[in-house]
């Protein structure tokens, strides 16, 4: 096949792609050798610790560090005064890392210390005297929107008055009023979700070292070492090229490690102490002071004709994203009705600030809450007209050519295929036991491309090293090795992939938005193809024929055209062995700003059982059906489906940020922030649908995020059916569920 021709993904037969090889980082991870954020050590290393605000909202009148500085073993202390103020879009990031004039949430960093031992650092924190003027605080999103709410930022105004509403947004098309007038059934409800945390098991950690020459080294667990480099360099006034950031193995992120918290502080401490500084967050700090997702209040109204056609849909979404603007309400508002082909649709969103930690991305940021609200209403409408809920969705499902509710016209998408596969799945028709209910829901995520750079180096022994710039958060190195092997026509185990540091590779966007298999995959394909071109050129030199007369087939260079059959094909290994004599090392390289990512849709089926006497609730069966486009490594695709579903189960049933009246977080630990444990769950069945993305040579779509979008709605639909009462607030924890059951029974009795 000519090198420039893009194969038709639907017809292509793959050798390596689609198989389930062992991951290159696997042995290290099962033997304890893998190096995560907190696993690095440096000579002369100090321990860094952060002093955090005990108040939800307080003016910082003064900070006296003199006693702490005098403590033996304390080598550096930094406060906001050590970071130059700025007025660009990194200011919020800076102020979030170190409070300036006000502490904006319980846990907000106000000072940091580097000391010879953890014990000294801990003692030093106690000696730092902060004079706070405690201010009134606000936690709830709707409370924060009221006229008399305590104001977080003087420079945010609405209608000329200070406000906590940082911005609004609106999406849609058509005329909802007209559509509602045509509707025969209308359901309108308001839903609420509490803030949840990504809950990655590895706390944030980094090791920073800045020398007297101003050159810096930073080791950290992050979803984007290039992002960390650019951000930290700017916050510290360093040249990008003088700060090398190495991404450690990362112990989970889910969006929560797409920004910086400790990293600039560690660098500042190291620069000041002139020694390496290691910082790790405790689990309590992770909950109080990293980036949970937004809490929300969402009103949804959908109108239906008797035949099941949706005539109009609208939603009003209020998201608080913590102490700074930037909640994911825009994406929630864009994603809310993305599964449907609608003539009249409108969504309106409010981005609200409150005295909570600044939100960070969490898996499909903004979309799960919106889907919870919308898909609950869709289920209720299906009940109202007596239609099967999958049939109702099929009748209105978005497909190729549908003008999406957020604007673009869809290319080929796979929602209908997931709905059909769900309907045909034995789960959907299996009998239910007493106190059990079944729910379904759909979900969508945009999926991103973005800046990506990959290097592929052919070793003289014929093995291939792949340098990637996107930290591997769930097995992507394995997928990239498969792709490189596929393109080169060599065995999977001849390829080894690493995540390169920022000095070794061009810029890469963060591992986010389900973009890695798509974007790094694209760049890997192109890098491999560039290497193949060079391999063919080298073979031509070895054979002394024109380069154009060489083709690449099954991992070998072969003479073609008039030279066909003149020479024995040369393997990659044979060409590589002679590379020094034919022009030096052989490498392929590619950099792109990838576009063409294809949305991934999913349909989930859930069975839940409720104990009506206690409100206890269990998911008894779960099936994920999702369009992957093309599954490169099906095991890790299934893993994304299962992991997303279970995070959704946590969000639906028990996870929530609980604040006290004083605005402090009450459950900053895994004891009372209740993520699902193994015994809470059934097996999570998966069905991989493959509707190829036309924007990728193999048809790849991202898969990581869509899987958390349907669960809360699907579970709420199942629980509502089991309990006989519509649940509109998350989490559906036992006290909430029991109260809802009791209230509905009381009402029924009256």
């Amino acid at each position: 096949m000519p090198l420039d021709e893009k194969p038709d993904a639907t017809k292509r037969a793959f050798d390596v792609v689609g198989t389930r090889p062992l991951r290159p980082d696997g042995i290290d991870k099962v033997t304890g050798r893998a190096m995560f954020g907190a696993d690095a050590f440096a000579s002369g290393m100090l321990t860094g610790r952060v002093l955090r605000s005990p108040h939800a909202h307080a003016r910082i009148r003064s900070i006296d560090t003199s006693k702490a500085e005098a403590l033996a073993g304390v080598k550096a202390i930094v406060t906001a005064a050590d970071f130059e103020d700025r007025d660009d879009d990194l200011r919020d990031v800076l102020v979030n890392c170190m409070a300036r004039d006000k502490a904006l949430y319980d846990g907000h960093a106000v000072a940091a210390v580097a000391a010879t031992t953890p014990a000294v650092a801990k003692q030093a924190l106690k000696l730092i005297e902060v004079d706070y003027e405690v201010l009134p605080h606000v936690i709830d999103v709707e409370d924060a929107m009221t006229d008399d709410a305590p104001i977080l930022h003087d420079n945010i105004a609405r209608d000329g008055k200070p406000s906590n509403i940082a911005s609004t947004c609106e999406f849609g098309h058509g005329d909802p009023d007209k559509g509602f007038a045509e509707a025969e059934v209308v359901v309108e409800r308001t839903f609420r979700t509490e803030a949840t945390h990504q809950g990655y098991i590895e706390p944030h950690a980094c090791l920073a070292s800045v020398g007297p020459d101003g050159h810096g080294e930073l080791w950290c667990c992050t979803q984007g070492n290039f992002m960390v480099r650019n951000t930290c360099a700017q916050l510290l006034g360093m040249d990008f090229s003088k700060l090398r950031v190495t991404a450690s193995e990362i112990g989970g992120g889910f969006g929560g490690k797409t920004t910086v918290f400790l990293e600039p502080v560690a660098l500042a401490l190291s620069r000041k102490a002139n020694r390496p500084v290691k910082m790790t967050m405790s689990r309590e700090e992770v909950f109080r002071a990293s980036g949970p997702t937004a809490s929300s209040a969402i009103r949804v109204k959908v109108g239906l004709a008797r035949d099941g056609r949706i005539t109009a849909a609208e939603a009003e979404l209020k998201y608080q994203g913590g102490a700074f603007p930037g909640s994911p309400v825009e994406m929630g508002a864009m994603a809310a009705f993305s599964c449907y082909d609608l003539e009249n649709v409108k969504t309106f969103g409010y981005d609200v600030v409150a005295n909570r930690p600044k939100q960070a991305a969490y898996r499909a940021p903004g979309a799960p809450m919106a889907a919870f609200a919308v898909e609950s209403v869709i289920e209720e409408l299906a009940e109202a007209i007596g239609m099967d809920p999958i049939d109702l969705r099929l009748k209105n499902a978005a497909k190729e050519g549908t003008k999406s509710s957020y604007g673009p016209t869809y290319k080929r998408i796979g929602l209908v295929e997931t709905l059909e596969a769900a309907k045909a799945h034995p789960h959907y028709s299996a009998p239910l036991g007493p106190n059990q209910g079944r729910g379904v829901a759909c979900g969508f995520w945009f999926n991103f491309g973005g800046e990506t750079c990959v290097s592929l180096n052919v070793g003289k022994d014929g093995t291939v090293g792949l340098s990637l710039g996107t930290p591997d958060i769930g097995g992507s190195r394995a997928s990239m090795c498969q792709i490189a092997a596929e393109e080169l026509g060599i065995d999977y185990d001849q390829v080894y992939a690493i995540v390169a540091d920022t000095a070794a590779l061009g810029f890469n966007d963060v591992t986010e938005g389900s973009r890695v298999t798509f974007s790094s995959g694209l760049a890997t394909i192109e890098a491999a193809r560039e290497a193949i071109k060079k391999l063919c050129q080298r073979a031509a030199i070895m054979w002394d024929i024109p380069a154009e007369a060489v083709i690449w087939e099954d991992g070998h260079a072969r003479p073609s055209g008039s030279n066909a059959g003149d020479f024995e094909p040369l393997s990659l290994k044979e060409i590589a062995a002679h590379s020094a004599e034919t022009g030096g090392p052989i490498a392929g390289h590619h950099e792109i700003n990838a576009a063409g990512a294809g949305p991934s849709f999913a349909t989930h089926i859930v069975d839940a059982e409720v104990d009506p006497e206690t409100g206890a609730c269990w998911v008894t069966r779960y099936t994920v059906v999702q369009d992957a486009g093309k599954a490169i490594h099906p095991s890790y695709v299934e893993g994304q489906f299962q992991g997303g579903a279970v995070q959704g189960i946590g969000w639906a049933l028990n996870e929530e940020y609980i604040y006290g009246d004083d605005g402090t977080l009450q459950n900053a630990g895994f004891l009372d922030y209740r993520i699902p444990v193994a015994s809470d769950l059934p097996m999570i069945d998966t069905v991989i649908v493959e509707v190829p993305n036309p924007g990728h040579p193999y048809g790849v779509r991202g898969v990581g995020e869509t899987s958390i979008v349907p669960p809360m709605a699907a579970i709420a639909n199942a629980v509502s059916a089991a309990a006989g009462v519509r649940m509109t607030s998350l989490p559906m924890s036992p006290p909430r569920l029991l109260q809802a059951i009791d209230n509905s029974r009381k009402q029924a009795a009256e």
Partner: protein
Amino acid sequence: MRYEAPETIETAVTLLAGEKGLAHVLAGGTDLIVQMRTGRIEPDLVVDLKRISGMREIAEENGGYRIGAAVSGAEMGEHAGLKALWPGVVEAAELIGSTQIQGRATMVGNLCNASPAADAVPALVAAGATVRVAGPEGERDVAAHEIPTGPGETSLKKGELVASVYLPARPARAADAYLRFIPRTEMDIAVVGAGVYLALDEDGVCSDARVALGAVAPTILRVEEAAQALIGSKLDDEALDRLAAAASAAAQPIDDKRGTRDFRIKVAGVLARRAAAKALERARANS
């Protein structure tokens, strides 16, 4: 902080009594070390009991069992005799935390940590357990429920430690059970706990009962009215309804991050009833 691992109770008591600062006993450490690490307590002395002979033993005594202060939940669960005699106590001890926590956490630690939500304590109280306290004045035996006096507060005096728990012999046709409510299946602190002991006469009439509730008051509640609802009955639905009502009526819980007041009141009744049913089943099997 100093760490000491004495080999006799006398040395342990001397160390604890002699410490001028804050002294804590280390058995399983699953509460103590958490509190140390989160900065809630900063002891000057920690006295590890695990090297004292007998502290890690379960010994038969007068038809019952004496359980050393450093016996872990896992060790209790592996003791067939104890499990057969007081299954409710063992299941309560085994509910404390994960497998990993079970490898360390002790019933005496659970008792002396004095959490209102302690799992082992309602079961101990229902079983009529006593504990042996060692101190500068020698040893004394007291009822288990007399140890915790409020959240994090105990009746132990300076220099005193609980050396063992004694679970008495159990009459025929009697049994105990413990149930708790948690939002997940594991890893949570009880939102409500209910321990029930009951004994039947030859006709299957309840002749004795004790009911204890956890997490619904500042200390574990012994609910005499709930026990009276059972005594004299055949544990029919009506009796169990009265038991549930009495349990709910006795509960004086608070709203907190783990549950609401209303929830706890209602579920206290539900659990008391379910625990009684379980104990009844066991008691019938014990005849």
